[in-house]
């Protein structure tokens, strides 16, 4: 039996109060197996980003439990949670979120430095090489293209060798050619290194790179797709499930 890297049980997440109360997640239970690539899809407001944030320990659900790499996040203090996130969880944002005053290499080694470790130059170079940016190590974010910035962000997320890599719309700010570069990179991580990857996206073409697609609607799991996925089959299936072809 395969190991489940991330397990979510009965997640409920609520925002706001009074009549502005919004239920973002309404009892979601699922898991992500080691060495798999999962895409989470759904219309705006379906709770897909919240799901990712809760699974990554960036946000806390009001109900339910999250286990990452065998450790329950439920009762961890803010400091312990941060440490766990730093060591076992990688996160890639839509807007790259690189620190503009640091070079690519410095951005990559930042999580290790925050953990109080001296980043071996070799590891940083290897991480940058893995995302194909060896010759960009000394550049600052402003001197890099969007795709390059996102690849630096991926290298940064991987430098601590996390158990799972979460990506929130990683290609949302990129054109399609660069998007495919980044997606191929993620696919390669899963295939070649057995990395577990969970990605939120609204792009069927991006989702087609995954092994498995979770469809969310109104904070609940609506459907699940596996097998040989292509952009068009995904799009057709989604349209059939949700009858809301807005995306």
């Amino acid at each position: 039996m395969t190991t489940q890297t991330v397990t979510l049980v009965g997640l409920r997440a609520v925002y706001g109060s009074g009549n502005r109360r919004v239920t973002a997640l309404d009892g979601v239970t699922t898991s992500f197996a080691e060495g798999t690539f999962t895409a989470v899809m759904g219309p705006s407001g379906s709770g897909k980003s919240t799901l990712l944030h809760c699974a990554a320990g960036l946000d806390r659900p009001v109900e339910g439990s999250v286990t990452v790499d065998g450790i329950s996040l439920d009762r961890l203090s803010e400091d312990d949670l941060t440490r766990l996130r730093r060591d076992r969880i990688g996160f890639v944002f839509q807007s790259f979120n690189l620190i503009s005053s640091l070079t690519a290499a410095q951005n990559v080694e930042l999580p290790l430095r925050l953990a109080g470790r001296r980043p071996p130059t070799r590891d940083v170079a290897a991480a940058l090489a893995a995302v194909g940016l060896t010759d960009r190590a000394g550049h600052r974010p402003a001197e890099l293209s969007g795709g390059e910035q996102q690849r630096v962000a991926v290298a940064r997320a991987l430098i601590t060798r996390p158990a799972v890599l979460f990506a929130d719309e990683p290609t949302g700010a990129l054109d399609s050619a660069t998007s495919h570069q980044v997606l191929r990179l993620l696919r390669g991580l899963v295939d070649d290194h057995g990395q577990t990857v969970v990605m939120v996206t609204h792009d069927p073409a991006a989702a087609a790179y995954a092994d498995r697609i979770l469809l969310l609607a109104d904070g609940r799991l609506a459907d699940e797709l596996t097998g040989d996925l292509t952009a068009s089959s995904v799009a057709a299936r989604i349209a059939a499930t949700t009858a809301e072809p807005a995306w």
Partner: protein
Amino acid sequence: MVSVRRSTGAFVAVAIGVALVAATMLLLASGRPQTPERLARAAVVVAGPEAGSPADPFPPDRPWSASRTAELVARLAALPGVAAAVPDRTFYAQPLVDGRPPQLHGQRQDAHEGHGWSSARLGGLTLAAGAPPRRPGEVVVDTALGLRPGAPVTLLTAAGGQPYTVTGLLDAPGVHVADEVATALAPGVRAIGLMLSPDADPERVAAAAREVLGGDGRVVTGDGRGVLEPRGDARTRWIGMQVLTATAALAGFVTVFVVAATFAYTVAQRRRELALLRAVGATPRQLRRLLYRHALLVGAGAALAGLLAGAALAPLLGRLLVDVGFEPSTFRVRYTLWPIAVALATGPVVALLAVWTAARRAARVRPLEALREAAVEQRPLGPLRATVGGLLVAAGVAFGFATALAGDPQQGADRALPMVMALVTGAAVLAPVFVGPVTALLTPTVRRRGGAISLLLRAGARTAARRSGATAAPVLLTVAFAVLVSGMIRTSTPVYATNRINAVNAEWVLLPDRAPGLSDQAVEAVSGAAVLPTTVFVDGDTAAEPVRPLTALGIDPATFSAANRMLTVVAGSLSDLHGEGTTVVKASLAGTTTLPDRPYPVVFADGERVPLRVVAVVSDDSFPGDLLLPRAAVRGHDPSALTDAVYLSSPIAPPAGARVVDVATWAAEVDRAEDRLVWLATLLLIGVTAGYGGIAVVNTLLMAAAGRARDLRLLRLAGATRRQVVRLVAVESALVVAVGAALGGVVALVGLLSIRAGLAEQVGAPVDLVVPWSVVGGVVGLCLLLALASSGLPAWRLLRRRSTVHVE
């Protein structure tokens, strides 16, 4: 992570604060008493017993009588190692040039002091020309007077003008006369200088001299001789010390206040970046440590820069203090270790204190905030902030009531200061709450043409209440202190003058002109109530208790009671005050309201101990001073006492060295010298707060401009013209100034009202509140000008430099 550009604001705030603290501390440490040049060659000086009381902190020492002096001189001169023991006599003497006292050496007290010739050797003074004075009628004067040996000169002493002949010149202030003349004018001696033989050890001689004295005085050597400085210098130094202490305290307070606001602001601006760090794995602890380290670095660097600036500033400020009369002319700035150490420590400590709350808040930043595009600020007030602000305001109000109930002006002032500090800090902490309502109140005035600006202003006030609050804080501080301090002075001055007028039953007053007092000649030339003050001394009840100085007024009972409206006789009769050995005392001094049957022994200025018979007891508010004596008794024991003033019923032609003014002028003038000093001190304090506050306003707004570049470019993208954006920024900063000025005004008003209540309580009559509108207008105008310039100009430049389309 320490970005130089982002740290500039905090760096500047800390550096200026440290510069202020360093300068005031250096000046404070420099204000040590100086050995008078006149006594520089006397390695050991024997001085009379020290006198002191809370009411008169700078009394002369208790003198020795003529016989005691002679005995001491003989025994001291016989000590091994002592070459000579020279009594130093000091009395009032002022040469007249062209019939008037010359204006020499500014305020220096020693310019109108006379001494016996023998004491010239104590200062190693040698004649610049001519011969020493050998007999009565001969005098050696200061070369600076421009007189030549052989020239006639009129010497004004307490008796009046006397014809003298200049026999020699000295390069020193004051005059020197023959010793027999000095003995007559100053029969009591307060210091005996010991000239030592070349191989004598001063400490050993001092020890021997102490044995000779047996407790009847003090023996000082080396720097310890500073206690012999002229009393006027000691008083001036004391005033300077008060002013510098107040300035240092205020500078420290303002520094912590402004730096805290600046750091809070810096941290708020870096919120997104901090959230990002949290997202990539920084723990809250690490964020706090990062901010502390940053603050420490900035604080240490700024401390160094501030110290250099402060050290350079100190001599300039020192000269200014001497010029305006806050320090004696002997004042020199000395660079000592401890003020430098304090200033260096101030930087990092203040920075750490300032960043403390900001860091705690920053550590609570959620990593997800990095994902949100525009950070909408949370509630304007957290529960902790609301509690702290509420407590501060409550404390301020409590101090306000205490001020209103204060028994005397000093106590009132002591309570008013913490009141204002608590209110200012409380108002600053709560400022974000007021930003929204005040903006809503004031925006209709700018609601024109479409109202886009007004809409943006209201929205901005809602989302950036904390930011606006931080900018309003220095304005609040500046306005509150400037208005309060100047309003307090303006409100209290007329009260004291009115009180004085009410106490006097006379229309005109004879006052000295360019002299410390009126001579007997001048007093005898007019008819009126003359007051001749002298200091008498009462021994402590036990040997350990210090000698107590008392102010005795030499008067004529009939004229004095006619001119004094406040005189209330409790027991006995004022008319019995005549002849040697009688006195009238205040009830608190007598300790009873009936005539005491025991005599009251005092030591006079000539060192004679006289048991006084109390003939009347009067109420405490009857006159300023402690006891009344017959004028002849004062003159008999203190040949150099000078008359303060003569109260006249009609105007007369003033005699030489005197002038006549009406009572209102006199009442306003009595405190004029003091008022001038108080007003200068006020200006200094306002200058410190306003200057620093102004810089803080500029600082915060410049930081705000840099942080808002993105917002402003987005506005341009949305279709705003550059002019509209600059106008928005300008109106926004004007509103912030309005919020700060309004809060500062309220704080000052609360303070002034309680001070007024306290004053009314003390004088027993209603007091008019004087609001110094010129100061209000000036300070608010200055803040407004600075705010407009420092927010509008960077915005204009920013929008000009880069293309509209490029939004980072």
